[in-house]
């Protein structure tokens, strides 16, 4: 924990989102730029004042896409850093922006992310990897292994998993930025095509395109940049962990919620807050099973109770711990580089009280968690 020595207080002062979905005639840099322009407008800070930018993305679209995205806004000569950290690429960019300010190096920072994920099952390794012949590199099959084991250990029925997807779509129906806005029933989720049993197609997040951006500012500098302090949201914690030995070895660990517990515990310690303080949460629901396991790992529901919490409505918008309040990966879709900052966007929007029909009344504390290949996990806690 010695490396987590909080420095200056950091606020998110602007957020922006490009809708998630499919945008065949728009390149990655253009998606990213639109989100940045929206976030800058929301913050009230002009581009020429931004001293540093971090850009999260995974798939190759040529070199230095961050520079390509920002160049048309004006060549101001600032450091622009491209960040690849699997599904945590966006949240890793955010983490760097946070520390850039907390450390005292910058007063402002831009974190943004974008992705155009190809269709079909997502794999982690390169095309010449032995995994191609072994058959284990299959993101959703990994989640399916977790689901089967979880069901055996906790007695969770298939309906509990499916309910996560039903809830996601119900919320997304109220979110114009979501990739999938049509709702469906428990029966429809269970009857959709099997991808890797017990996971059906509607229990797996769509591969998507989209972009998200956030502008961060030192709390002590809000006045200097004329920022509306009433809409600024405090970053109470930002943690990032990668794989640590768990006794099982590398083949298993990529799918373990074990990391979420570690990064979450660090975030609770850094913020001085606990699970009981959290009013709403965004977790990495790439598949239905993941939502309940991350909630348990973050101590937001008791161990083994994630499925009951789901069926009881505790995780719904009106429940005790509203979860994935914009539709999550399951309905928003999952453009890797954008997802982590999309979660920041939603949490900030909720804490500002600007979430419209999706608003969690009186929300004061929000948590966001992302996990990715390489056992990368990020957690942030935000306060009003």
């Amino acid at each position, binding site marked *: 924990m010695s490396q987590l020595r909080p420095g200056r207080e950091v606020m998110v002062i602007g957020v922006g989102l490009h809708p998630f979905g499919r945008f065949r005639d728009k390149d990655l840099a253009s998606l990213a730029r639109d989100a940045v322009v929206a976030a800058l407008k929301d913050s009230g800070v002009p581009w020429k004042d931004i001293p540093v930018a971090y850009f999260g993305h995974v798939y190759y679209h040529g070199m230095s896409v961050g520079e390509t995205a920002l160049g048309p806004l004006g060549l101001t000569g600032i450091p622009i850093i491209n960040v690849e950290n699997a599904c945590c690429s966006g949240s890793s960019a955010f983490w760097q922006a946070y520390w850039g300010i907390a450390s005292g190096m910058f007063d402002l920072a831009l974190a943004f992310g974008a992705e155009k994920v190809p269709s*079909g*099952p997502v*794999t982690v390794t390169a*095309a010449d990897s*032995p995994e*191609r*012949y*072994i*058959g*284990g*590199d*299959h993101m*959703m*099959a990994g989640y*399916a*292994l*977790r*689901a*089967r*084991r979880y069901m*055996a250990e906790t007695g969770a029925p298939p309906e509990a998993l499916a309910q996560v997807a039903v809830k996601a779509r119900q919320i997304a129906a109220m979110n114009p930025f979501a990739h999938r806005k049509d709702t469906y029933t428990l029966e429809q989720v269970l009857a959709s*095509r*099997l*991808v*890797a*049993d*017990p*996971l059906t197609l509607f229990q797996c997040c769509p591969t998507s395109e989209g972009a998200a951006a956030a502008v961060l500012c030192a709390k002590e500098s809000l006045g200097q940049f004329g920022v509306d302090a009433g809409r600024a949201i405090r970053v109470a914690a930002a943690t990032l962990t990668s794989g640590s*030995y768990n*006794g*099982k*070895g*590398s*083949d*298993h660990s990529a799918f373990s919620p074990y990391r979420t517990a570690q990064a979450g515990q660090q975030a609770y310690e850094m913020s001085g807050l606990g699970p009981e303080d959290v009013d709403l949460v965004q977790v990495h629901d790439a598949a239905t099973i993941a939502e309940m396991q991350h909630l348990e790992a973050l101590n937001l529901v008791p161990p083994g109770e994630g499925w009951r919490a789901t069926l009881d409505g505790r995780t719904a918008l009106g429940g005790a711990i509203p979860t994935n309040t914009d539709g999550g990966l399951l309905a928003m879709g999952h453009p890797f580089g954008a997802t982590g900052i999309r979660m920041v966007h939603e949490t900030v929007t909720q804490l500002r009280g600007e979430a419209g029909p999706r608003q969690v009344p009186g929300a004061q504390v929000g948590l966001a968690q992302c996990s990715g290949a390489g056992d990368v996990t990020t957690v942030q806690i935000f306060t009003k």
Partner: protein
Amino acid sequence: MTQPNRNKPQSVDSRRLKLTNDAGTQGVLLGSCCRQCGICVFGSASFCQSCTGGDLATVELSGQGILYSYTIVRVPPAGWPGPVPYILGQVELSEGPHVLAEIVDCPETGLEIGMAVVLALAPVKTEGSEAVKVVYKFRPQLTTAGASKARLEAQRKEKP
């Protein structure tokens, strides 16, 4: 002088599977055990994943384990050379490490978390060449009665 046989079966990953005959029908899984802290991981390694020490022994693993979890993959990843669907197992080896591999010689109805499994080797044709990769898989470790029952079920399933 004999020409090297280009089509001689090769291990899919020599750090994990060592073939012990030229035909590629026999082999052992490799592990690494740390002489400092005692932990054992799947595959050969130079440094310990737990304590980071560099004093490791390459060991031959027993190839026996239990099925920790499984799934039947119906939408395969790009490049998968086998039939679909296929059973993907998460096997907990008796030495401790977990391994993801295909489960073969087992009807879907015969799958059960906790069942004993053993190493099975299978040749897989590589794309665009005659070369053969030998891939580690697992199959149920059956009693004689169980074996004939599973064979019967597998045969019944194959018939239309």
